[in-house]
């Protein structure tokens, strides 16, 4: 499947803008379709083994793209591994450790995989011979996903205009530009900060965006924070 799609269809009834002029920020949206891998874990030992053995895209799905999946628990813990440890194992100590882990720090999925596996292994060692088991019906299912990226047709020329437009696009736009961008760009920065760098001289906005503790926020919460920052512009503290 194409993972990028830069054309978007016309939408009757929607006031579509012409193509974004140079220097404008063009908002993209994305959508995922989840694919089961057939592999599951019923206890922490199996989760550990699975993390070591599954394809990189599976780790990526459970740590990053999981933000695009429906889940009530996403508002509490930021990744699938932490959620499962809390809900299925009732092991909140491990859930907290896995939730605190910042996957945007390591350079590669290989490194991320190792940190996750080591964290779980340490936890298992500390509790030997006890191995936490999932409640019946709560196995962990390893998944991957396909993602489709679309131009929304919505663009902004100024930060305050961008803030006004965030509710006109799907919240997946925040995932693409703010979460996923950090892994797409070698400098590890989000698209909004890069755009502000290229087109504006407002260091205050960039600093406030960079100061967001986004990793523990949901997409909706990040959107709210960005609207707050961008709409207040340079008047902000």
């Amino acid at each position, binding site marked *: *499947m*194409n993972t990028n*799609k830069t*054309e*978007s*269809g*016309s*939408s*009757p*009834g*929607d006031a579509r803008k012409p193509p974004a002029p140079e220097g404008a920020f063009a908002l993209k*949206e994305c*959508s*995922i*379709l*989840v*694919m*089961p891998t*057939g592999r*599951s874990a019923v206890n922490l030992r199996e989760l550990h083994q699975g993390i070591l053995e599954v394809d990189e895209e599976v780790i990526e799905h459970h740590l990053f793209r999981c933000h695009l999946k*429906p889940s*009530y*628990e996403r508002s509490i813990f930021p990744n699938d591994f932490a959620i499962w440890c809390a809900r299925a194992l009732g092991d909140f100590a491990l859930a907290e450790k896995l939730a605190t882990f910042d996957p945007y720090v390591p350079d590669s999925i290989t490194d991320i995989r190792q940190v996750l596996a080591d964290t779980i292994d340490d936890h298992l060692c500390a509790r030997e011979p006890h191995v936490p088991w999932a409640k*019946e*019906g*709560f*196995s962990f*299912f390893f*998944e991957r996903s*396909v993602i*489709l990226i*679309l*131009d*929304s*047709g919505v663009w902004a020329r100024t930060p305050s205009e961008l803030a006004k437009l965030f*509710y*006109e*696009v*799907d*919240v*997946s736009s925040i995932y693409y530009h703010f979460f996923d961008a950090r892994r797409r760009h070698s400098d590890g920065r989000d698209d909004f900060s890069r755009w502000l760098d290229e087109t504006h001289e407002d260091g205050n906005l960039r600093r406030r965006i960079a100061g967001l503790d986004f990793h523990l926020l949901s997409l909706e919460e990040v959107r709210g924070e960005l609207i707050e920052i961008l709409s207040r512009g340079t008047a902000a503290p």
Partner: protein
Amino acid sequence: MTALNDYRPIVGPAALRMIRNLAADLKGTRFLTINSTRTGGGVAEILERLVPLLCELGIEAEWEVIEGTSDFFRFTKNIHNALQGREEELTEADIEEYEKVQRINASRFDFNRDLVLIHDPQPAGLIAQVPKRCPWIWRCHIDLSRPQRNAWRFLEPYVELYDASVFTLPSFAKKLTHPQYLITPTIDPLSAKNRELSKKEIDSVYEDLRIPRDMPVLLQVSRFDSFKDPLGVIDAFEMVRRYTHCCLVLAGGTATDDPEGATVYQQVRERAGGLQDVYIRELEPEADLQVNALQRGADIIIQKSLREGFGLTVTEGLWKGKPVIGGAVGGILAQIYDSFNGYVVHSTEGLAYWIRFLLSRPELRRRMGENGKKLVQQNFLITQHLRNYLMLMHAVTDRWNSTRA
């Protein structure tokens, strides 16, 4: 006829624009979907809405229904039960009948399409009867987590002929050689079953069905099917009634592809005979407004399933702002979070306990109802389904084209 724009007040303009963007490249796609019943059951309800919406988006979508003999539907019901884990005998004669019905139906439909989507085991064998000129997808709505071996062995060779499969939950997925995808079913917030109702409309339905409103109402809406455990619900109600005054409503319809319904209905009537405040109501497949009113007038929604593909009645109950108590199986676990919007239970005693717990806490019921409605709004409405179908079409056709390039 509902148009996509009608959903705008519920899901917002961004969701609709994104759907239109996803559909843009798929305009003109000749899409055929086939299931086994036009009325009754969640699949028919979903297709009734999805197909017109796909057409509105420029996809040439058509929905066909296979025809079969009573022997065929008895066999496919057995297969359905066996795939959900119950011991059923599959005879050679049954298998011959299945193949015969597939052959007859294969000649009824035009398979000259760009994409074919087949639902569940009943029409799954069509793929073996026609030359494949486009990608075929098998959409399974059944809980396949613990199938009877013989049933899966019967079905698997057919499923392997497909280019992709779609399951509701990861626990239902099987070891197959083609890609598998996950899509949860959804409800239509604008349908007669789910739209807002006035108090007058709700009262009128309760009056018509002769169900009193002067005590708390516990409601389970589902087909009369042993996997929905209506007898267990009555047992739990008896336990509750020793402590609290309330009534139980068991309401359900039958589907044309479910010959077992009448037997279970009879069992339920016999079990409830002589019990006070138990109301058994057999509803017509088109009694959507009645279901809606019953759910909106209820205090607690129950879905004590022993196996469950997804449990759209849970989704419906949550959408009406009610706390839902459901069996800890299948898709119910993806919808009910303990203490957030209801409870999942593992026993009849558990059901009785949480009913009593909630009946004595009206404020908690109200809060849970709000949580449940929000959960459905964000995840389980038909617009999300439409978006997933469009994603599926992209994924499967792209793969088909790339393997042939």
